């Protein structure tokens, strides 16, 4: 299981890559993709929508179930990774390369965990 040190993580298993103080790429963690199993569909967020940390941002579908992806931060969706529409398997193959959305106007990142704390959290769960 891979937990890149340069990323931040939420307890709902999303990663956050800060691009500047208020903008970030977000995606799902290696742990999340492993738990979900092979993904077959991604319902991407809508550009321009406001997202709230801890609330559903979009959903992903595996052969087992449809699961919500929570937003790890509060802000506005600036961009989505349309590549995932045709290639949801990228979330499994390269979870930290396959970003889901770019979020801007981020207000608060204090609740996020660093890689070490997140790795410990996944072991408790």
């Amino acid at each position, binding site marked *: 299981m891979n937990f890149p040190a340069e990323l931040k993580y939420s307890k709902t298993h999303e990663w956050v890559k800060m691009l500047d103080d208020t903008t970030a790429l977000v995606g799902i963690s290696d742990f999340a993709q492993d738990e979900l199993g*092979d993904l077959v569909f991604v319902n991407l967020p809508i550009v321009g929508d406001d997202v709230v940390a801890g609330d559903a941002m979009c959903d992903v579908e595996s052969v087992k179930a449809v699961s919500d992806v929570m937003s790890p931060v509060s802000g506005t969706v600036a961009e989505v990774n349309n590549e995932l529409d045709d290639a949801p398997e990228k979330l499994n193959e390269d979870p930290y390369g396959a970003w889901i959305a770019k979020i801007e106007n981020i207000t608060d990142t204090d609740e996020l965990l660093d890689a070490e704390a997140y790795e410990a959290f996944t072991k408790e769960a």
Partner: protein
Amino acid sequence: MKLIFEKGAPDQHLSLLPACDVPEVSFKEERALPLRLPHVSENELTRHYKQLSDRVHGMNDGFYPLGSCTMKYNPKIDEELAALPGFTQIHPLQSAETAQGCLEVLHTMEKNLCEITGLDAFTLQPAAGAHGEFTGLLLIKAYHVHHKDFARTKIIVPDSAHGTNPASARMAGFDVVNIPSGPDGCVDLEALKAAVGPDTAGLMLTNPNTVGIFDKNILKITEIIHKAGGLCYYDGANLNAVLGVVRPGDMGFDACHLNLHKSFATPHGGGGPGAGPVGCKAELAQFLPGPQVEEKGGKYKFVTPKYSIGRVRGFAGNFDVVVKALCYLLTLGKEELPHVAENAVLNANYMMARLKTSYTMAYDTFCMHEFVMSLEGLHKETGIAAMDIAKGLLDHGIHPPTMYFPLIVHEALMIEPCETESKEIMDEVCDVFLQLFEEAKTNPQALHDAPLHTPVRRLDEVAAARHAIVRYNFD
């Protein structure tokens, strides 16, 4: 196995169709391509479909404990009655005066379902459960709109609900508010109180719920919704647990659907179409889809309610399913009907009691007509997941239980034996379940390799979902 298009040769044909007894007409314009019909002989055709049927597991093949699906025995007398010429040799556009018997069937069924559910009116049009949910939600919407209460846009759905509930609510134009279950598997009353308000259109609930537990707070739940000005919708998918014992209307529900193909024993799954009649209290009856059957002085006619939401399906719904379900109902009668629920609950508790000697139950309490086991512990210990146990069952001629549902239970297997299985059969099945549990510990590889004796081994579900091929490729 070859597909039918891969069999036969251009000069092969069959003579099953009767001679044409109407004047022949030809299409005005030539088709761009010839009709792509299979060319097979009668002999090959029958073999093809026999081979297909050999690959199916139905009620007639073995135990079928598919939780929340109520795969009970379909009595053959129902088929016999539905095949009577008075029911089959009839045209849906025939005038009502010439189809009085069929209208009487519909009317009798509506009245019986009202009595069974404690509701005041029914439509038999919806074709299945989710279609019924959608219809019921349109009734709730019509009710609020009729009262000019346009702010009610939200439907509350517990997290243990069938996936169709939030989907139907969205299809009907509502927003969905999800509320959590408590540790006992029942609705969290405090969360429900916090969720209701002037924007609450209604609640959708299954009782017993999807973990097989009867929510003891049901009267409080429907009262909270009513006090907030909302209406309550009963998802009748699990009616088999309470059929003839408890009525949705008495629990405080304003509308519900019933799955005739589940609780009333008509073939479903691959075996036939469903029927999901919707019932409601008097204050919603004026919005029901039309036409409905009305009886006056022994004569039956079609009428449409005053503020009807309109048709939800052509003609009278899946009429033959209604005939079979009515036959089932009349065969049992008022006296025997409660025994359906009693024996369904007894059977489920018997299997649960035997299996919990090894398996971990998601909720260790008496269950209703079904119960949920969590294989999370076994999975951690042995690497054998619910999926592997399910595949192992196939080699024993047993259809697997419902898997990975409800979502609130990890590694879930949900077992619903139904009332139509004997103790001897259930004992055999329990023995297999217990044997597989031991095998998970002693020889996990055997379960990873299962199934060995099925026409196909493990299917690539991911490839099937990512690259669905749903049409024969002629080129």
